[in-house]
């Protein structure tokens, strides 16, 4: 009878480690504000031009910021041998991957979604778009985390994998970006975002079932 204890332990561990290294967790949030700052400056801070582009910019920024944190997902565990202990353990690796993805999503997915209002403020996002923006970000980052999980697992044992990570995740982020940003655009044009949001949710659920087993398989490759 395998209890959920190992998976809860891993989730708790990652959250506690993140709390102990609070600065690391805030880095992607700071990066997001920086990227938005760059866009606002480049576009000229003119409200009429910023508002229509606010949603797409926020969505791209959130994906880029979330992407930054992928490198650290397994890096620490590889360096101190914790990953090998997990691989040598009797708990299901797929279950551990779910715990790992959930921890990452809570920290960076939810984190960035909660930070989105600040980004929206900076980009003069019309207030009525905020609800659909937050919903789409929450659903989208859940899917994005799964894509990130696979990419991080595939590159866990490689020394420098920055660009490679981007090359792996960006094509797979695309559908999430399309439906996520599309749902906000729909509301901006006065349509209902239901269709786009449902497709976004379907995409995330699909990735939720695909990613952990794929990541577990990828991690087993590294040690043959």
């Amino acid at each position: 009878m395998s209890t959920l204890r190992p998976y809860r332990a891993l989730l708790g561990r990652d959250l506690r480690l993140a709390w102990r290294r609070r600065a690391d967790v805030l880095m992607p949030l700071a990066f997001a504000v920086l990227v938005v700052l760059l866009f606002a400056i480049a576009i000229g801070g003119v409200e009429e031009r910023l508002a229509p582009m606010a949603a797409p910019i926020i969505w791209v920024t959130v994906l880029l910021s979330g992407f930054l944190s992928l490198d650290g997902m397994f890096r620490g565990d590889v360096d101190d041998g914790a990953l090998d202990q997990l691989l040598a353990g009797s708990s299901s690796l797929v279950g551990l991957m779910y715990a790992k993805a959930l921890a990452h999503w809570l920290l960076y997915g939810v984190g960035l979604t909660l930070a989105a209002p600040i980004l929206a403020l900076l980009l003069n996002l019309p207030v009525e778009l905020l609800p659909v923006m937050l919903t789409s970000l929450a659903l989208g980052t859940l899917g994005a985390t799964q894509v990130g999980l696979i990419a991080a697992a595939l590159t866990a044992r490689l020394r420098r994998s920055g660009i490679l990570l981007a090359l792996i995740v960006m094509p797979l982020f695309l559908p999430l970006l399309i439906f996520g940003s599309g749902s906000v655009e729909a509301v901006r044009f006065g349509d209902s975002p239901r269709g786009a949001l449902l497709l976004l949710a379907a995409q995330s659920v699909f990735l939720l079932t695909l990613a952990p087993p794929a990541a577990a398989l990828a991690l087993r490759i590294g040690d043959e």
Partner: protein
Amino acid sequence: MHPVWRWFHQMGSPPYFYAFSTRWMPWFGGLALILGAIGIYKGLFIAPADYLQGESFRIIYIHVPSAWMSLFIYLLMAINGAIALIWRIKLSEILLLSCAPIGAMFTAVTLLTGMLWGKPTWGTYWVWDARLTSELVLLFLYFGVMALAAAYEDQRQGARAAAVLALVGVVNIPIIHFSVHWWNTLHQGETVRVFGETSMHGSMLWPLLIMALATKFYFAFALLLRARSMLLEQERGKQWAIEIAQGGR
């Protein structure tokens, strides 16, 4: 043992595969050349010009077959990936690594010819048409697989990691395809119908099918070529490799 499985098993032994490639490469290469020549000749000079797009339409005879090949090769690569992961067959790993550059090449050709077709027909080199956009994403899927395979010091682990990515990629291709089309209709509406299935009949259609065959034979030729040179590289110390080098065949 099932004959196909036995054949697949025989192919696993490097000397046997090398001999197989030596015997079949000239055929595939020759057929590709002949069919290619016929197809291009028919396409450029025999087929009537398109009443709408005029002459530039003839680029279709390399654009569309290449597009078909880019998807076909990715699928074949993913299948080899599955075989390599499930049955740990070394030959499938080599075929996977050999497929990727060829597939990327066909994708690049599709994009290049698509741009050169776009200019005379729609006035711009790059049109964010659903098909061209999916093709561009496919190019990055290929680059991802190749870069990941190259990033591992151990080639076999690299191939297996690339196999996982190829499988994740192939599962996502329909989703990317659907979402790009959905995005296209959302933003451009139905106005831009690039590469729509124009009403093609006989003389226009034949060159297309011939070129489709020609590209498949070329792919077989190039795949065997890449796979055998990779195999020879890996087994350079072995006796059969030395005999091959001496034999000059």
